[in-house]
């Protein structure tokens, strides 16, 4: 088995940066999205996953996204092609040895992430940065998996990573100021807007989004409004791009339940606990758009309320 699913055409890194090689670990939705961000910014990018099939799938997703960007005119055809050429896949850690920035976006499980960081210590250069893309785990806990926690920084990308400008940055008490500064420079070069937050459950966006959505669900349970009237009131009166129930259907009720439960376990604040209606909907298989039914029903003709 070859370590790299190679493309020999490697573009030079952007001139302002000392970063030459970015490695993204975990070839799922977030990992392949972040790989697009890095390749598009001009860095040689390796998408790593222990499972070769995942690597192939993640690379295909990333390349499809870049090709689409070319078709839509978001990138020139040449830019899209060059970015695609900078992307390489790997299923062996040795391919990460010369990475300057390693971004882990593997399964959201503390033990998995910690042991991955411990493995990385043996492979990558001592001064390489390690970024962890967690949404609900503590950066401090994840960083404790590394023998060099001073180089570990939390960088929480929004989904879809290539389209969403925001990255939430959090550090552990051991993170060095230099690692934080290099991280923010990296994110700026990657075209992202970074905000700095304490390492607390949910960081900023989920910290406020989860209780907001739960309150909207409780308002529905209480009969304060209907799915349609609450969505209309929120979009009309507050100018949100989408009502809470449209958004929950896109996110998926199962994902909302998972994120809300994780924050609730850490914060022990009932506002974060998923309301009973969420359990009922999951039990019924109404997970949102992906199952054809959530708060709304998705048919091929029209949308109507449940």
């Amino acid at each position: 088995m070859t370590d790299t699913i190679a493309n020999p055409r490697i573009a030079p890194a952007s001139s302002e940066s000392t970063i030459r090689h970015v490695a993204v670990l975990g070839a799922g939705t977030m990992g392949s999205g972040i790989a697009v961000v890095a390749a598009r910014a001009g860095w040689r990018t390796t998408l790593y996953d222990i499972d070769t099939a995942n690597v192939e799938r993640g690379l295909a997703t990333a390349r499809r996204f870049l090709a689409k960007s070319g078709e839509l005119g978001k990138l020139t055809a040449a830019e899209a092609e060059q970015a695609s050429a900078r992307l390489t896949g790997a299923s062996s850690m040795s391919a990460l040895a010369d990475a300057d920035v390693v971004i882990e976006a593997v399964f959201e499980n503390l033990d998995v992430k910690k042991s991955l960081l411990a493995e990385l210590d043996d492979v990558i250069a001592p001064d390489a940065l390690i970024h962890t893309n967690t949404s609900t785990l503590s950066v401090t806990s994840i960083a404790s998996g590394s023998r060099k926690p001073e180089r570990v920084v939390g960088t929480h990308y929004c989904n879809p990573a290539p389209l969403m400008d925001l990255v939430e940055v959090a550090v552990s008490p051991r993170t060095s100021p230099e690692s934080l500064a290099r991280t923010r420079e990296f994110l700026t070069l990657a075209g992202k807007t970074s905000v700095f937050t304490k390492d607390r459950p949910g960081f900023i966006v989920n910290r406020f989004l989860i209780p907001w959505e739960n309150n909207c669900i409780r308002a529905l349970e209480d009969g304060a409004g209907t799915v349609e009237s609450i969505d209309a009131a929120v979009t009309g009166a507050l100018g949100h791009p989408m009502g809470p129930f449209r958004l929950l259907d896109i996110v998926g009720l199962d994902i909302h339940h998972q994120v809300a439960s994780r924050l609730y376990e850490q914060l022990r604040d009932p506002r974060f606990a998923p309301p009973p209606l969420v359990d009922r909907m999951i039990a019924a298989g109404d997970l949102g758009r992906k199952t054809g039914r959530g708060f709304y029903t998705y048919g091929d003709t029209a949308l109507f309320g449940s």
Partner: protein
Amino acid sequence: MSAFGSVAVLGLGLMGRGITQTIAQAGVPVTALEVDRARLDAGERAIGDFLAEGVRRGKVTEQQRTQVLGRIGLTTDVEHLADADLVIEAVMENREVKIDILTRVADVVGPNTVIVTNTSALSVTDLAAALPNPGRIAGLHFFNPAPLMPVVEVVAAMQSDPGVVDRLAEFVDAIGKTAVRVKDRPGFLVNRLLMPYLNDVVAELDAELATAEDIDTALKLGLGYRMGPLELLDLIGLDTHHHATGSAYRATLDPQYAPPPLLAQMVAAGYHGRKTGRGFRVGRNTKESMS
């Protein structure tokens, strides 16, 4: 066709003038009541300026502006409201002040004239109980700026005649807005959801989760909100939010509505947001260090 042929608006403050303009723009004649000529003139001028800005942006023509202003009558005399089919109260958010003016108007208009309050923080049911023939009383809660905001909450008080609520919803549709029917509960629907979120943000700002600027940036970029919560508070007015959330708290004893200590201190210091030139975001150095 509007469900009401002529409308009276009580009060030409920020909300009253927006409501007056919205209704006149929908082609319905409207008479606005204020306590003195100076307030009437100030309100009329503000509406004229708002429409002039619309002309400048190409949203309305100069001719339409003249027509809209021509549909607005101004008076300081309650007797001049006798022929109104619908009265919309938009005076200051104070129970006694509202009951006083609504009682005087109720004496003048017909017994079946529909009377609504634009309150956001008071109980419509409580106001209706203080007035004759409470079945014709309900709430119409407009959002600021009324001419631009597409949603109006139609509030059914305990006593409201369902037919009156239906007519009000039709009226809202006829003036080009979306009617959202809500129960008469603290905060109705929108503020019930908005206030705990804003309080939560203020409490976390106080707990130094992130800077005010970074909190606003994260929520705008992460969720596509037009304004961050702290910019929004500066716009609403910290005193206004403090009053609204304080009354929701007293009505529910739900801690989500309790005004957070930092909010109370900002209000005490006179930092009310844009209107006083200092709030969470205005009047601050936004280049604060972030790490």
